[in-house]
C-alpha cells in the first residue's frame, strides 16, 4: 500500500504548528496505525529529519495513550484505539490527515502529543475511595446484584484516552467524568464519599476549561470502550442531589 499522510507538526506549546505532507511507500495492510507511523519515523530519522512525536504505550487498547485525530475522527474511522486500528481500514493511495486532540484543556506539547494532565487532576479531585482496602474480601461478602456489578464494570472500562473530548463539538469531558463518578457511585464502597466526589470532580472539570455537554452523543459513538451517555445522566443526578443535600459539620454543630 501507498498512502499520503498529512500530519500536524508543532515544535512546542508556544509555537504555531502546521501540516506537513509525507509520502509513505511501504505500508502493509496488516500494520497497525502506530506501526505505520514507526516505519515513517525510521525513514525520517534515516534522512536526518525530526521524527513525528506521538503518544503510545501499551499498544493493546488498554492504556488510552494513543491519541490521534485521524480523518476527522478520534482514533480514526473505527470505534477503537489508534493502536488497534489497522491499515487495511484505509484504501491504497488514500490521503490520511492526522491531527492532535483539539481542546483548550488539552494543549499540544509537540506534534501529536497533547497534555492530558487535566484528566489526572479531575481524578485526583475525588475519583478514589479514601480507605485502605485491606486484603481481598471473601467472595459475596458484600452483596451486589449482577446488573449493578456489570454496569459499574462497564463504567470502569474507561481508559481516560480523551477521545470523548476530542469528538465532542463542545470539547466536553462529561463522558469521562461521568464514567469515573459512576464506577464508584454504583458500588457500596463508593457510597460513603459519593456527594463529595461528584461535587469536587465537576468543580475540577469546570476549572480545567472543558466545554459543556449538549447531548449530541458523539462521545458515545467514538469512545473506544463504548461508555454510554447514560453515565452522563447519572453524573447529573449525582451532582444535583449532592449540591442540594450536602452539608459540612463544624465543631459545635452543623452550618
Amino acid at each position, binding site marked *: 500500500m501507498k498512502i499520503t499522510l498529512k500530519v500536524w507538526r508543532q515544535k512546542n506549546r508556544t509555537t504555531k504548528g502546521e501540516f506537513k505532507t509525507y509520502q509513505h511507500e511501504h505500508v502493509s495492510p496488516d500494520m497497525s496505525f502506530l506501526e505505520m507511523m514507526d516505519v515513517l519515523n525510521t525513514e525520517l530519522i534515516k534522512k536526518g529529519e525530526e521524527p513525528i512525536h506521538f503518544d503510545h504505550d501499551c499498544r493493546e487498547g488498554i492504556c488510552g495513550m494513543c491519541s490521534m485525530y485521524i480523518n476527522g475522527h478520534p482514533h480514526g474511522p473505527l470505534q477503537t484505539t489508534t493502536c488497534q486500528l489497522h491499515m487495511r481500514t484505509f484504501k491504497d493511495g488514500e490521503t490520511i490527515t492526522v491531527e492532535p486532540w*483539539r*481542546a483548550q484543556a488539552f494543549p499540544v506539547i509537540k506534534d501529536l502529543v497533547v497534555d492530558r494532565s487535566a484528566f489526572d487532576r479531575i481524578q485526583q479531585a475525588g475519583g478514589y475511595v479514601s480507605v485502605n482496602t485491606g486484603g481481598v474480601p471473601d467472595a459475596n461478602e458484600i452483596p451486589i446484584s449482577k446488573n449493578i456489578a456489570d454496569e459499574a464494570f462497564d463504567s470502569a472500562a474507561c481508559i481516560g484516552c480523551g477521545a470523548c473530548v476530542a469528538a465532542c463539538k463542545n*470539547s466536553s469531558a462529561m463522558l469521562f467524568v461521568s464514567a469515573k463518578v459512576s464506577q464508584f457511585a454504583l458500588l457500596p464502597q463508593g457510597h460513603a464519599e459519593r456527594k463529595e466526589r461528584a461535587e469536587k470532580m465537576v468543580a475540577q472539570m469546570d476549572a480545567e476549561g472543558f*466545554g459543556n455537554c*449538549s*447531548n449530541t452523543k*458523539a462521545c458515545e459513538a467514538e469512545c473506544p470502550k463504548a461508555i454510554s451517555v*447514560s453515565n452522563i*445522566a447519572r453524573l*447529573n443526578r449525582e451532582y444535583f442531589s449532592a449540591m442540594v443535600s450536602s452539608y459540612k459539620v463544624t465543631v459545635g454543630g452543623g452550618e
Partner: protein
Amino acid sequence: MKWLIDLFTSSLGRKLLMALTGLFLISFLVIHCTINAMIFYNDGGTTFSHWGHFMGTNPVIRTLEVGLVAGFLIHIFQGLLLWKRNHQARPVKYSVSKDPKSTWYSRSMGLLGTLLLLFLIMHTSHFWIPNRTHQFTQGEELPLYNMMFEVFSNPWVVFFYVVGCVSLFWHLLHGFASAFQTLGLNHLKYNGIISFIGTAFSIIVPFLFALMPIAVYLKWIN
C-alpha cells in the same frame, strides 16, 4: 447561599437551567398552540377570542406570564453563554471533519435557537408587544383575530413564520429528549417513551403552528 450560586454557575447547573426553562417553554407551547388552534373552528374568531381574552386578562395567567418572560430570557441568555464557552473550549479547530457520528440538528442548537430568537422578535412585535402596550396605555385589548388576517396577508410574513416553525421542529427534536437526559431522567424502561413523545411533540406542535398563517393566507379561514 453560596452553594446555590455554585450550583447555577457550574457547567452542570447551567445545563440544568437550560433543561428546566426548556421544559417550561415546552409547556407554554402546549397552551399557546391549543388556544391558537381555536381559529380552526372557523367561527369568526368567537372561540379564539374568548380564550385569548381569558389569557390576556386572567390575573393568574398574567402573573405566570412574568415567569414566562423570565423563562425565555434565562433560556436565551444561558444558551448564548454556553455557546460562547463551548467555542472557547476549542480555540484551534480541526481541519478535517467527515461523517460526524451525531445528528446535524443536535450540533446546531445554537443556530436553530438564534433563528427562533429572530422569529420571536418578529412574532412578539406583531402581536404580543402591541397588545400589551395597548392594554397598559388604553386599558383595552387589541382585536388580535382581525390583526392576524392583516399580518398574514403578506406572503413574506407567512414564509418567515413557516421558517420559524421549521426551526422550532428541529430545535424541539433534539431539545425535548435532551432536557430529560440533562435532568438525569434516563432509564432503560422510559427512554423509548420519552423519545417517542419528544418526536411526536416536535412534529405536531410546529405543524399546527405553521398551518395557522398558511390557512389564513390561503383563506381556508375567513
